[in-house]
């Protein structure tokens, strides 16, 4: 079992190894995809083995995987697989056209693998200090991806990303310190005492005042990585400037890792402080993010920015769901995270194809996508519907669950507000994407070398949409158990 966990974290490094050995984009991408597939397979196996049993614990809690961790591992590994397949054709096309030099291609796959590996490792540790180290390291690795294209805009975005996120994560580290201070009655001498299951089990001995501060700092700090307003300012720039498969990784994997850290802190805070204080914190940040995301979507322009602001909105919805709490709220939050990850990965990957073909990232300069590039156009259309929460896709189901959780927890004001904001966000998003999909189709030269590259571009889009559709119609029994076990872990 320990070996399995190590394998999950290390297997994405295949792409890095291939790139460092000097492989070109196609080969390095294929190695990356193979590694990601191995990671996904292993995390599914781990989830089956765990199945509500005692968590996997080794090395004084430095390695600690329970059902919740397993669920996140599966999500992140799945997104990594989709983005890796998307990288093969995207980066190869940029390499062929000379937009990326060979050095940049090697840099891309080196950091892509390290980034994925660090995120998976962050989900596998129980030590809160090591969690910080891995999350900060993943920030640095992904910053290299954001600044990869080396233009003034992308360097500026990368700078903004790395400086704001580093500050945020450092604030989360201060929150971790305050959590330890709150536990000074526990005499946290051993390494095991610094792991979150130990702190959760001994939550009643924590000092409530410093725990309150610790939770707030953790939400602000890790919330910076999640993209919660008002700490979201790095997010649209970084998502817009990164190569599209890297944007998919940021939006669909990295944000979830930040949310995972918040959930861990939430569990401890709830066990000691009760629900009122954490709920107030989460609902404030959550609704602020939904409002900011919805408002900034109105501006037309770069379509990747649009998707990025939609991520801010979606993370707000998930935070609100965590704030509603209860079994229903947590179930909705986790399901929403998985669904959003799939939908956003498809959206960003199809936006990559659009950017390659139209040679622009401006929504106003793209038209007739459905006629010009039917597969990508259809994927963009369906994923847009999915992300806006329309049936039959998974997000409809999870958003319904979240609204139900809101009504169940008391005041109907918040769920009604949530519904209104969801409606508000629908209009600008749909307006921009419709403009891209319909209209006159221009004559476009294919950026890809051959038909197989086109097929590789379409593969992750179809895979992601199929998974979204399945999750909208039916939640597999295995996933349902995994979600229930995860909720039991949070308590």
């Amino acid at each position: 079992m320990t070996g399995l966990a190590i394998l999950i974290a290390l297997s994405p490094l295949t792409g890095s190894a291939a790139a460092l050995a000097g492989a070109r984009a196609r080969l390095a991408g294929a190695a990356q995809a193979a590694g990601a597939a191995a990671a996904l397979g292993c995390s599914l196996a781990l989830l089956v083995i765990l199945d509500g049993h005692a968590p996997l614990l080794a090395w004084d809690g430095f390695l600690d995987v329970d059902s919740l961790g397993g669920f996140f591992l599966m999500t992140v590994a799945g997104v990594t697989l989709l983005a890796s397949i998307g990288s093969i054709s995207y980066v190869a096309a940029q390499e062929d056209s000379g937009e990326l030099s060979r050095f940049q291609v090697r840099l891309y796959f080196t950091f892509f693998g390290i980034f994925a590996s660090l995120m998976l490792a962050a989900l596998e540790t129980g030590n809160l200090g090591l969690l910080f180290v891995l999350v900060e390291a993943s920030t640095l690795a992904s910053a290299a991806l954001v600044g990869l294209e080396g233009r003034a805009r992308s360097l500026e975005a990368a700078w903004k990303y790395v400086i704001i996120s580093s500050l945020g994560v450092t604030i989360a580290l201060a929150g971790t310190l305050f959590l330890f201070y709150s536990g000074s009655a526990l005499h946290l001498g051993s390494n095991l005492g610094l792991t979150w299951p130990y702190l959760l089990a001994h939550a009643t001995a924590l000092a409530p005042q410093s725990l309150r501060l610790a939770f707030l700092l953790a939400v602000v700090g890790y919330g910076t990585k999640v993209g919660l307003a008002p700490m979201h300012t790095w997010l649209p720039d970084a998502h817009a400037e990164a190569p599209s498969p890297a944007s998919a990784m940021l939006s669909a994997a990295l944000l979830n890792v930040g949310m995972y850290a918040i959930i861990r802190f939430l569990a401890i805070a709830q066990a000691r402080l009760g629900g009122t204080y954490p709920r107030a914190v989460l609902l404030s940040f959550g609704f602020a993010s939904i409002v900011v995301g919805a408002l900034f979507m109105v501006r037309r322009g770069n379509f990747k920015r649009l998707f990025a602001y939609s991520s801010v909105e979606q993370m707000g919805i998930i935070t609100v769901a965590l704030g509603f709490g209860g079994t229903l709220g947590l179930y909705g939050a986790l399901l929403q995270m998985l669904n959003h990850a799939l939908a956003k990965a498809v959206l960003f990957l199809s936006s990559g194809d659009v950017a390659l073909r139209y040679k622009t990232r401006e929504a106003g300069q793209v038209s007739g996508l459905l006629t010009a590039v039917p597969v990508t156009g259809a994927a963009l259309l369906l994923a847009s519907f999915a992300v806006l929460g329309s049936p039959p896709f998974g997000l409809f189901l999870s958003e319904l669950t979240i609204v139900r959780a809101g009504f169940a927890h008391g005041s109907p004001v918040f769920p009604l507000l949530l519904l209104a904001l969801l409606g508000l966000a629908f209009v600008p998003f749909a307006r921009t994407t419709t403009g891209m999909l319909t209209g006159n189709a221009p004559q476009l030269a294919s950026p890809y070398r051959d038909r197989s590259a086109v097929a590789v571009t379409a593969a992750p889009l179809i895979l992601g949409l199929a998974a979204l559709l399945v999750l909208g119609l039916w939640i597999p029994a295995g996933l349902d158990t995994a979600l229930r076990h995860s909720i039991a872990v949070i308590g």
Partner: protein
Amino acid sequence: VESLSATSVAGVLLDLSGVLILLLAFACLASKLFNRYVVYYGAQSVVLSFAAGTAAVAFHSAELWILAALTLAVKGIAIPVAARRVLVTRLALKRDAAMSTGLSTSLIAGGALTAFAYLVTRPALLPHGTVAAAVVPLSTAVILLGALSMVVRRHTVAQLIGWLIVENGVFLGAITLVATFPFIVEAGIFLDIVAGVLIMVVFVSGLTRQLAEASAAELRELRG
């Protein structure tokens, strides 16, 4: 965790170092010249490494000795020297570290943040009489002052050093309770900082070069 009492020799020295670190954070905030700003940051790191050494003696911890030596070598010497050499000389930065607010405004804000740090951490503290009770408000104030430096400074390198001041504040808090982080985590944090500085310097020099090229291109267009 054995907590140091505030009246022991090590406790007094740690407390004193904390005060000095806070004062140097204020000095960073107030310095108008870029050179001074970097020097104050270096001095702060030297004091921090002294504090880590004190804690190492008090807790009999070999690991803290290593961290103290690393802090001195990397944060106290290497980063300030490199910042001055590479960035000030080679990138021909203006010696003036531009601020987006007035000096007095930022100092008043700094004072308010320090008061706020005491207000927030006081009731949440360890039992009275421990050194952590004295140092944690100081380290919180340093964290807030570092963040303030990041906000008011316009230049990217100045913002980077602001982040390093925040890190110093966190590290000061961490060493007062020696057992909070195992060595591997402390070493990981250190590695993160070094990698962070390297990658940020790459971005900064890339940006500076791009901007220089852009202005050169403008010059070429205005001919005749």
